[in-house]
Every structure is written in structure tokens, then in C-alpha cells.
């Protein structure tokens, strides 16, 4: 069994998604129950589906010294970094701890593959077109290398790419680095952007709904794909005692199937157990769960089997009806939404569900509500049976 860990402060965080740029836009949409999915207008021959597209990504201009990193994913990363005073908070951590004592661990599923796709559409005598002959963007580490350059972080830098659990796992890796004294702070997060690979890829697996996704609805019929950038700055609790905290994390593997979850949720359950043990709390202490809730038949069926251990007062929702499934960014995005629940005392509703699955109905929050949230969980499950669960809690009263 794992041991209880020292909590870490979430000294700063931000999210940019189909709901808008920055925390205030996410909060407003969650409070009003106003989703961000819209008809698919991405790619040359768009599939009939809804997407969670971030407005304004096309208009982002990277500063000249960073121009060679230009691509949709890094533009979204840059846009995300400009929100909620994040750049100042990162600069503050670098000043306090030293640039090499700040780690950078980011999750992404496809990174800037959109640029590689673009190069293949515009081949020049069998070669990439000249403007895209930039090896640094045709690699899955493109995002983290760009963010290291953009922020001046000079500590250990790593990309975790485990599909839809990628940017949940970054919290666990950062906590271990800080626990062993190899870093004093860490910027974690995730960025994934819309691209043909995921739109046509999930379509080929028959996992994309034609409608806005309906998590935990009896009539659910697949995912809506979205894009997002979300970041969190982790520091020792004494640096920001009033900030919400990372209390625990758990990771596991299903050992079952590449694209279908274990039917009894074996791996998901193990990740949840470990996360609660590391946090030193029982399931009865959990006020809110941000569910993975992709709105595929299998995911929601399996995830609902985890709910009976929680008290009937525990509220649970998937926020993918708001943002779409943001894949490698989902872990960090939904961690930030769980943090909003704690800081602002809200329960995000499970948008898109009108006929709740009986197995989940008791816990599902169908409408927005205000309620004190001291402990919030976030679940993330990915291809290859890769599971992560995070536990967040309240900081000291201000």
C-alpha cells in the first residue's frame, strides 16, 4: 500500500477551453450550465459531430523569439499561459526557487501532430513544405519544449503521453520530484488541440457521437472531441497556505484491452484506492467527483460501478458535456474545474444528461448548484487501460 503524502499547494492555475479563456469564463459557464460544444467546422471535410473548439486560437501570434515553435497546439499553450496571471506566478516561483529548481511536466496526447498532418497535405516534391521543416514541432515533446522556452523554466522537463490520462499523471510525477527534493516547484498541465488524427481516428473506432455528448445518459452514444490548455503551479504548502492543495494521486493499468476499459473497472478502482490512501482520507470525505465520463457506452457503464462506495451526499459529474473530451488535456482541465468547485463552492452539473443511467443517478449532479466542497476527486482513464485519479482539498482559511 502507498503511504500518505505531504500535500502540495496549487499556488496558481488556469484553464482555457471551449468555455472561454481563463478561470472566470470556465466558472461562469459552469454556474450557468452553458456548454461550449458547437457544430464541427474543423478539417477540410468536417465529420458530422459537435466539437469543443477554443475561440481565437488562429489569431494568436507567438512572440518573435518563439516563432519557430508556431503551430496550433503551441498557440493554444501560449494562450493558456497568458491567463489568470500564470506567467507572473511562474516568474515568481523561478525567482523564489531558482530556474533549475522548477520542474516542468506536461501531458499531451497528440501534441503538434496537426502541423505534421498539414505538412503531409502540402508535400513539396515529397518533402515537408519549407515553412514546416522544423523538427522541434514534429515530435510529441513539442509542447513542453516550447513552454520551457516561453517560461524560462530550466528544471527537469518531461512530456507524459498516455492518451486521456496524460495530464492527470503529471501531478503525480511532479509530486514525487518535489517529495524527493529534486525540485521545489513544478508547472504541470496539459494541452491538446483539435486535429484530423483524433477526429477521424475516434470516428474510425465508432466512438464519436453526432450530437453533443451525453455523459451517463441512458441514450449516450459517444464522445464529442474538444481542445484545451490547463496549467497548475505546484509548490510547498507554506508558500501558499490558503491555496487549494493536491492531497493524493493514484495510477494503475487495466491489463485488459487497448481501447476498452476493464469490465469491472479493476484498474480504475485501484487508482482510486491509491489516491485516497495517499490523501489519508476515506471515500466518505469526498464532496465532489469530476468523473471521466466520456459518454461512450463502456466508459460510463464501468465508471458508474465505482460510485456505490461514495456517500449519497457526494455529488458527481462529468464536465465533458461542456468542453468535449479534451484527450491529453482532460486530466489537467478537469483538475482545474475540480479546484474551481473547492474555491468557489460550486458543483458543476453533468451537462447533456436528461435520462440518467440508473447506476449513476443517485450521485449525478444534473443542475448547477452552490455547495461547500472541501474535497474533490478527478478521474482520468486512457487508451491502453491507463488510469489516474487525483484528490484535491481546501487550503487554510484566509
Amino acid at each position: 500500500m502507498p503511504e500518505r503524502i505531504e500535500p502540495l499547494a496549487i499556488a496558481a492555475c488556469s484553464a482555457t477551453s471551449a468555455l472561454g479563456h481563463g478561470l472566470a469564463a470556465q466558472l461562469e459557464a459552469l454556474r450557468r450550465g452553458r456548454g461550449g460544444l458547437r457544430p464541427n467546422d474543423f478539417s477540410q471535410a468536417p465529420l458530422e459531430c459537435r466539437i469543443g473548439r477554443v475561440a481565437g486560437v488562429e489569431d494568436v501570434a507567438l512572440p518573435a523569439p518563439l516563432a519557430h515553435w508556431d503551430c496550433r497546439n503551441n498557440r493554444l499553450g501560449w494562450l493558456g499561459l497568458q491567463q489568470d496571471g500564470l506567467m507572473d506566478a511562474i516568474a515568481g516561483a523561478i525567482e523564489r526557487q531558482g530556474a533549475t529548481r522548477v520542474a516542468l511536466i506536461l501531458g499531451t496526447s497528440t501534441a503538434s501532430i496537426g502541423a505534421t498532418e498539414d505538412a503531409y497535405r502540402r508535400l513539396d516534391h515529397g518533402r515537408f513544405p519549407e515553412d514546416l521543416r522544423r523538427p522541434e514541432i514534429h515530435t510529441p515533446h513539442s509542447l513542453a519544449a516550447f513552454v520551457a522556452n516561453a517560461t524560462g523554466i530550466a528544471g527537469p522537463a518531461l512530456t507524459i503521453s498516455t492518451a486521456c490520462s496524460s495530464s492527470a499523471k503529471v501531478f503525480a510525477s511532479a509530486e514525487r520530484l518535489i517529495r524527493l527534493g529534486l525540485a521545489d516547484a513544478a508547472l504541470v498541465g496539459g494541452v491538446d488541440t483539435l486535429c484530423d488524427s483524433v477526429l477521424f481516428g475516434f470516428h474510425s473506432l465508432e466512438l464519436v457521437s453526432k450530437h453533443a455528448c451525453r455523459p451517463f445518459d441512458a441514450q449516450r452514444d459517444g464522445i464529442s472531441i474538444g481542445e484545451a490548455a490547463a496549467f497548475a503551479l505546484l509548490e510547498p504548502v507554506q508558500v501558499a497556505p490558503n491555496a487549494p492543495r493536491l492531497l493524493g494521486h493514484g495510477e494503475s493499468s487495466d491489463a485488459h484491452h487497448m481501447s476498452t476499459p476493464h469490465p469491472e473497472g479493476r484498474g480504475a478502482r485501484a487508482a482510486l484506492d491509491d489516491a485516497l490512501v495517499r490523501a489519508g482520507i476515506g471515500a466518505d470525505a469526498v464532496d465532489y467527483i469530476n468523473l471521466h465520463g466520456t459518454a461512450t457506452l463502456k466508459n460510463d457503464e464501468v465508471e458508474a460501478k465505482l460510485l456505490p462506495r461514495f456517500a449519497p451526499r457526494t455529488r458527481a459529474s462529468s464536465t465533458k458535456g461542456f468542453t468535449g473530451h479534451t484527450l491529453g488535456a482532460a486530466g489537467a482541465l478537469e483538475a482545474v474545474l475540480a479546484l474551481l468547485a473547492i474555491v468557489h463552492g460550486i458543483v458543476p452539473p453533468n451537462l447533456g444528461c436528461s435520462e440518467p443511467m440508473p447506476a449513476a443517478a443517485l450521485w449525478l449532479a444534473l443542475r448547477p448548484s452552490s455547495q461547500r466542497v472541501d474535497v474533490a476527486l478527478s478521474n482520468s482513464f486512457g487508451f491502453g487501460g491507463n488510469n489516474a485519479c487525483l484528490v484535491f482539498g481546501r487550503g487554510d482559511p484566509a
Partner: protein
Amino acid sequence: MSAPLSLRITGIGAWAPGAPDWQRLRVILRGDSTPDDDAPARPAGTILPAAERRRAPDGVRLAAEVAAQATGMAGIDPATVPCIFASTQGELAITDYVCDTLARSPLELSPTKFHNSVLNAPAGYWTIATGCTAASSAVTAHHRSFAAGLLEAAVFACAEDTPVLFASCDVASTGPLAEMTHTTLAFGMAMLLHPNASNGARLNLVLHGGTAEPVPVVTMATVTRDNPANAEALALLSLLARANPSNLRLPLSSGLSLDMEIKP
């Protein structure tokens, strides 16, 4: 600076063209032999069930092969061992296929190839084949993938007090993407890192404030040239192949390098 991460390497796996396992590569790296021209052109990957092995792309076979060698040598059941798979580029031939298909006829994209395109395909196939329910991860850091992945694995082993399987693999690129990746030859290696075993080579890791020069490797120079991503992995294996204690400094970030003390 913090205390060194202190580990034992209780198992090693390796695969390179002409050197299908660690025993073979070790004698080559010692200068006592040369690559075997008759060795199989593809990794065996026999730990994968036959049906999975047929569907598995090259990177998965390579990772499964070296991981099985390392856990076999360590005499450890992989089912409970957390595993971290590093790769600079992932499944390059699949990326080429996906991008080419999307450019021509996106609706014809193969669902199997799509789910094989994720960077954690090796971790997925490995955990399924071995029944491993522990944490598994797929990590990358472009030119620093080996050093950054090794640090991640060592930190996991020390922080959670558990043996960890670490693998670093890259396969050859195909198509127009090849010009961007410079990887034309497959190479993979794996190590079972143990925080409290009493056997195996000692490996102590510390972060060093300052940058490092890329390490030169003299033997198996084709790997360094044609799979530059794993030149540093080969540098560590070269030291492990010899009997004398040694040190290695690998670039890690813009301000740090990873210092290794190796006592075979």
C-alpha cells in the same frame, strides 16, 4: 542539492540490428565481437500473445522484447512492477501512415492503426501481455528522452520504494517524416531498476547544475548515427558492459544535467 537516487540494475534488455539481446550486445560493446549479420531483422517480442504480436507495430515488439529480457534477467514477475516507456518519437511508421491517410482519404483511417499510434501503445500492450496492473507510463523529451525518462523511472522507484521497469526505444521512420526525425534504425533497451536489491550493478543519480556535452560512443557507431535518440542509452550500456566503475554526465535541461555513477 538532494541525496543521490541510489538504485541497483537487476536486469538489462537490449535489441539492435545484429545484436538481438543484451548478452550479444554486451560482448560487442566490450569490443570482443561484431554485430551478427544473420540476426533476425525484427525483434522477436515473444512475450506478446501470437494474435497481439501480429497486430503490434514495430515499436511495441521492440519494447516488449527488451522489457521481457530485463524482467527475465531480474527474475521478477512483471505483473506488479510499474513500468515507464520512453521514446523520442513513438511509432514513427504509424505516424507516417496516419498522416498520409488523412491527407488522401481520412475516412479510410484504420481504427487499429489509430489506437496503435498513441505513445503509450507499448505500455498498453506490455501491461496486457504480462497482466501488469501497476502504474504504467509513456514519456518523451525529444533529444533528452533517455535521460529524462531514466530520471522519471528512478524517481518513481525511490519515491514509491518499488522496483521499476524502464525502457527506451525508437524505431525507424518512414516517408516524408523521416527527414524531420533522423531515425533510420531501430534500437531499444530496458533496465529493471531496484531501490533496495542486494545484487546488480549500482547506479547513483544526481542532478548537476550546469549543462553537459553529448557523449561520444565509439562502438556500435551506427546506432549513434542512425538512432541518435538512443545514443545516450548506448553510452550507459557501454559502461555497464565493462567491469570497472565509471561516471556519465548526460544533458537534461537548459540548466541541468544528469550525473550517473555506475559500479558494475
